């Protein structure tokens, strides 16, 4: 899994490449927690190149969403592939998190 971060339109964009599973989710958690601690609470997770997410990855997203909300920020998610979208839909994450079809719509919202 590769994580890259960038800044755009008052958001910190976290692009995730590869799989988020039990082994890689601690890395994602560290990255996201670090950003929040640095005061970057408007996060956008770009999943365009994410091929798989496990319950551990969903937990990281859930915990991050809670933390950002507590600091009046938000965690948005965009560009989910069909497999990941189904996981989000069936597990209820589509309604817990703000999910957008692509980066532009997420930043424009």
């Amino acid at each position, binding site marked *: 899994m590769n994580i890259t971060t960038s800044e755009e339109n008052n958001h910190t964009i976290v692009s995730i490449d590869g799989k988020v599973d039990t082994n890689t989710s601690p890395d994602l958690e560290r990255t996201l927690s670090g950003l929040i601690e640095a005061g970057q609470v408007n996060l956008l997770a770009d999943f365009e190149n994410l091929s798989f997410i496990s319950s551990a990855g969903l937990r990281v997203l*859930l915990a991050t969403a*809670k933390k950002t909300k507590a600091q009046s920020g938000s965690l948005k998610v965009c560009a989910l592939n069909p497999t990941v979208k*189904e996981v989000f*839909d069936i597990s209820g994450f589509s*309604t817990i998190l703000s999910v957008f079809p692509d980066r532009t719509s997420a930043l424009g919202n």
Partner: protein
Amino acid sequence: MPVDSLHSRRVWHWLQLSAVCASIILIGAGLVFPLAGVGLLLALYVLDLIAWYGLWQARHRSPRLAFTLLLITAPWELLFISTAVVDDALPLIWMLRFTRLLQLNMLSVHHERSELSASGYLKLVRLIFNIALTTHICACVWLVLGLSNADSWLAPLLEAGLADSSLYIRSLYWTITTMTTVGYGDITPGVDAEYLFAAFVMLVGASFYAYVIGNLASVLAQFNAQKSAYQERVRVVANYLRNQQVPVELIGRVQNYYDRRWQRYRHYDEQNLLNDLPGSLSVEVKAELARNLIAKVPLFQMVSLPIRDLLLGKLRLEFVDPGSLVTRAGEQTHRIVFIAEGELEVEYQGAKIGTLSAGDYFGNHSLILQERATATVTTRGFSELMYLDQHEYERIKRDYPEFVDMVSKAMSINSEQMTEWMLEGVVL
């Protein structure tokens, strides 16, 4: 429930009300005071109006039944009194009115599909009713024959000035002594018509014996037939378990489970019953059985009717006893579990973290993430669960891609507790 079935049920209530009230009046006034007054007769006509209203409503649904009941309740006696003085014609009118009692017989036929009849009680009531009605009709004819001839069996009694009710009682007494072949011989025919009728009653009486004995045997055999069959099956299971040296405590639990299941469903194997029915009817019945579930689970209210029916068709129903393991931590689950009734306990890392109740569902996380469950779910009391197996879920998703969106929307309503648990590490 479809409107027409509701309507039909209401119609039956009207008919029952009319039939029972009419019967009370007929039995009370007709048997004890066979020559009762015009007022009661008018009351019967009012009750008939209620019955006719019900028949009018039921004419499309059960035309044959409506027609038969109309024939039974029609005021045929009015045909006979057009030229006669009402007071003189009253005995005849009352006798003809007794055809109304056939309504009761018709209604008992309607109830034959109910459990009451299966238990044999209704059959016994019908048997007694048929005996009483046949005896009464014969007694009435015997009385009419007596009234219409100067040399009849009734002549000495009329001369003695016996009351009308006494005449009827004598007639009834003669009928019973003849039908039961006792034949005291104190009342004998006087004219040809009476001889013929007496011979007829003797023949009827002999056949009646066969009818009564045959029916009694059948009623006794069928008393609680359904429950007996069920208990027999339970006995077979218990005997098998005993032979296999299963602990007594466990056998007790099995018997307890069957007892509760009987109380709940009054049927041995509802799944087979549903499989027996054609597809659409089975779904309709299942929708009725699962009405609690449909009312409580948001998913069922959100999906379109075709998907709801498909879901109901694919759901497996299971009645589960207390303490049953539904999901075990460490196991990969391949089904979504819907709770229709009962309460389930969730245990995570050795601690009880909460409960799930009617309307909740779980298994979707484990199924979609292809991960093993991390929590154990057991039933607290007797529970009714419905399972949607993974391959059925995949099929619905393939045929109706919008299903996933609907699940997503439904999850938002039901997911607060699950979200918290997921944060703690629970996968169900």
